[in-house]
C-alpha cells in the first residue's frame, strides 16, 4: 500500500482557446494521506477547480487538456487510465460535490433514484431494492428527516441546503476514499453553510474518506481542514498545516488573503484591506513570480525569476517566495 492516497506531481492543465493557451494549472504538486482533510484556497480563476476536475478527469475537452504531470491515486497514475476505468473510479473511489446544489441534481428523477443509481452502478449484483434501501440509509445519514418518504421526492421539492445534503449522500454512497468538494457551501446561506461543513467533515471521518475542500473562504478551511494549499495564478504559492497558515503565514499573498478577511473584533468603521490589482492574465507568458505585480514586498529578483515551492524553515510549511516572512 503506497504511503499517500493521492500524489499530484507537476500537473499541468491548459485550455486551448482562441485568445491563446490559458495555463489554468501550471506545475502543481501536492500529496494527500488517506483520511486527511486538505483545504485548497485561492481567489476565482486561480486554478483550484481545474485541479479538482483534473483529478477526477472531468475537464471539458476541448478546450481543456491535461498536458503534463501525473496524478497517482493509490499508486496508480489516473492519467493513464482509459475512459471505462475512469467511470469505474468516479463515484466509487473518488467522488465530487459541486458548488451549486440548485442545478446539480437532475430535475426529472427522484432523489432516491439519483442516489440508488450510483450504488447500482458501482456495486455489482446489487438489486434495485437493495440500492433503494441504501439510498434511504444515506438520506438518513445526511439527516434528511423522514428519509423513506422523501426519497420519492424530486429535487425541486428540496431547499438548497437539503439538495447539498443529497449531493453528499450521492458522493458518499459507495464509501469513496477521496471526496472532492468544490466550493460546496458558497451558494448556501451562512447558517446552512456551517451545518453542511460539519456534516461533511463528520461523515468523511466516519467513512474514513479523505476530503479535499476547495474554497475561497479561509474561514471555512480553519474549522474543517488539517492542511492547506494556497493557489495563485495556476501555481501553489504556499502549503502548510492549517494552524501555521493562520499563525505564521509565509507568502505575501497568503498574508494579503488573511488581512482581507473582515473580523468581528475590529473597531466599527474599519475599512477592509483588499489586495490591490488583479491576478495576471494566464494566457500570457508570466516571467518571474506571478504575484510580483501585486506584492507589497516585491524586489527586482521577483520580476525575473520564478520562486520554487521550498521549506521556509518551520517544519512542513512551504512557500514559493524568495523573501518569505
Amino acid at each position, binding site marked *: 500500500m503506497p504511503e499517500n492516497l493521492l500524489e499530484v506531481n507537476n500537473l499541468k492543465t491548459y485550455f486551448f482557446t482562441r485568445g491563446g493557451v490559458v495555463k489554468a494549472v501550471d506545475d502543481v504538486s501536492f500529496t494527500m494521506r488517506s483520511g486527511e482533510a486538505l483545504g485548497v484556497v485561492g481567489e476565482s480563476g486561480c486554478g483550484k477547480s481545474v485541479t479538482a476536475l483534473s483529478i477526477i478527469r*472531468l475537464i471539458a475537452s476541448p478546450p481543456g487538456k491535461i498536458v503534463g504531470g501525473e496524478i497517482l491515486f493509490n499508486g496508480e497514475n489516473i492519467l493513464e487510465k482509459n475512459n471505462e476505468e475512469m*467511470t469505474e*473510479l*468516479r463515484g466509487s473511489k473518488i467522488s465530487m460535490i459541486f458548488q451549486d446544489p440548485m*442545478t*446539480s441534481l*437532475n430535475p426529472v428523477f*427522484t432523489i432516491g433514484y439519483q442516489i440508488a*443509481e450510483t450504488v447500482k*452502478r458501482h456495486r455489482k449484483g446489487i438489486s434495485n431494492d437493495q440500492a433503494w434501501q441504501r439510498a434511504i440509509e444515506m438520506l438518513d445519514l445526511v439527516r434528511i428527516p423522514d428519509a423513506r418518504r422523501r426519497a420519492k421526492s424530486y429535487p425541486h421539492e428540496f431547499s438548497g441546503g437539503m439538495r447539498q445534503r443529497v449531493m453528499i449522500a450521492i458522493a458518499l454512497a459507495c464509501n469513496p476514499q477521496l471526496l472532492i468538494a468544490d466550493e460546496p457551501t458558497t451558494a448556501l446561506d451562512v447558517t446552512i453553510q456551517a451545518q453542511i461543513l460539519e456534516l461533511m467533515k463528520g461523515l468523511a471521518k466516519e467513512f474514513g474518506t479523505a476530503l479535499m475542500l476547495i474554497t475561497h473562504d479561509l474561514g471555512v478551511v480553519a474549522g474543517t481542514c488539517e492542511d492547506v494549499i494556497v493557489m495563485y495564478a495556476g501555481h501553489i504559492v504556499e502549503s502548510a498545516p492549517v494552524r501555521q497558515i493562520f499563525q505564521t503565514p509565509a507568502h505575501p499573498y497568503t498574508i494579503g488573503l488573511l488581512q482581507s478577511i473582515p473580523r468581528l473584533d475590529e473597531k466599527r468603521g474599519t475599512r477592509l484591506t483588499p489586495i490591490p490589482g488583479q491576478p495576471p492574465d494566464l494566457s500570457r507568458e508570466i516571467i518571474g513570480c506571478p504575484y510580483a505585480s501585486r506584492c507589497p514586498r516585491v524586489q527586482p529578483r521577483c520580476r525575473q525569476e520564478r520562486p520554487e515551492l521550498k521549506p521556509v524553515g518551520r517544519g512542513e510549511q512551504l512557500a514559493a517566495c524568495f523573501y518569505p516572512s
Partner: protein
Amino acid sequence: MIQFLIKRLIGLVFVVIGVTFITFIMGYFAPGDPIRTMLGEHFSPLLYAQLRHAYGLDLPWYEQYWNFLVHLAHFDFGYSFKTQGRPVWDILKDGVPVSMELALWALVVYLLIGVPVGIISALKANTWVDTLNMGIMLVLYAMPIFVFCVLVQVLIVFIDQETGAGWPVANWGEPWHYTWTDIQFKLAPVLVFGLAGAAYFARITRTSMLEVMRQDYIRTARAKGLPERAVIYRHALRNALIPLITVTGVTLGFTITGAFLIENIFNIPGIGTITVSSVLDRDYPVIQATTVLLAFGVVMGNLLADIAYTLVDPRIKLE
C-alpha cells in the same frame, strides 16, 4: 386534472368563436358573390333571390353569424354552396381520415428522423457530421414545400421512365389501408411532408440537447461514474425532450388540417384540398367548417402537449 380539462374546453369555445368570427367577417366583406358563382353566367333573378334566401344570405351579417354559431353548437356546419344541398359535414367526413393519416405518418417521420439527427448533431457539435446534418436539414427546411413536392414528382416520373416501375406520382389510395398499392401512393407525400418537418425537429432537438449537456446535473451524472450512454440517453435526453413536446403539440394541429400545398400537389383528397377548393369556390360554409377543424386541432394538440408535460417533467402540475 378534471378541472384543468374543463377550463381548456371552455377556452376552446372562445377560440372557435374568435377564429370563426374573423373568417366569417373576411368572407362577408370579400368581393364576389357565392350565388352568382354557383349559378354561372346565365340565371333568372327570381332563382337568384330564392337561393339567396334559402342560404340565409339576405339576412344582416350578425344574424348570419349568429345562425352559424347556433348550428355549430349542434355540430351542424350547414350546407355547401357549391354542391347544392350537400351537407358540409358530408364533404368533410371523407377528408378528415385522409388528412389525419397523412399527418400521423408525417409526425412519425418528424420524430424518427428529426430527433435522432438532432441528437447526433448535438453530440458531435461543430464537427463535419454536425455541419453535414444541419446543412441537409437547412436545405429541407428552407426549400418551399411546393418545390420539394414537384422535385420528388419529377424524380418519380424519371425513375418510372427509366425502369418502367409505374410508381404513382399522385393520389392517395384507401385511407388506413396498407396494401402494396396503398403504400406506393402514400410513401412519397408522407416522406416529403415528414422530411420538411423533420428538419425543424432536428434543429430544435440539437439546440435543446446542447443546452442540456451544459447543465450541472450532467456533470454530476458523469462524476457519479455513469457511462456516457447513460449520461446521454438517461439524464440528458429526458430533459432535452421537454421543449420538443410543446413543438409536437403545436405542430400536430397544423399538420392535420394544414397540409394545403402537399394535398393539392399530390392530389390527396384531404382537408387541405377541400379548404383550398372551397376558398376558390367561395363556399363559405365549408371554409368556416375547415377553420373550426383547424382551431380544434391546434387547441387539442396543445392540450395533449400540456398533458404530456406532466408525464415527463415532475415540476409541472396541471392546475
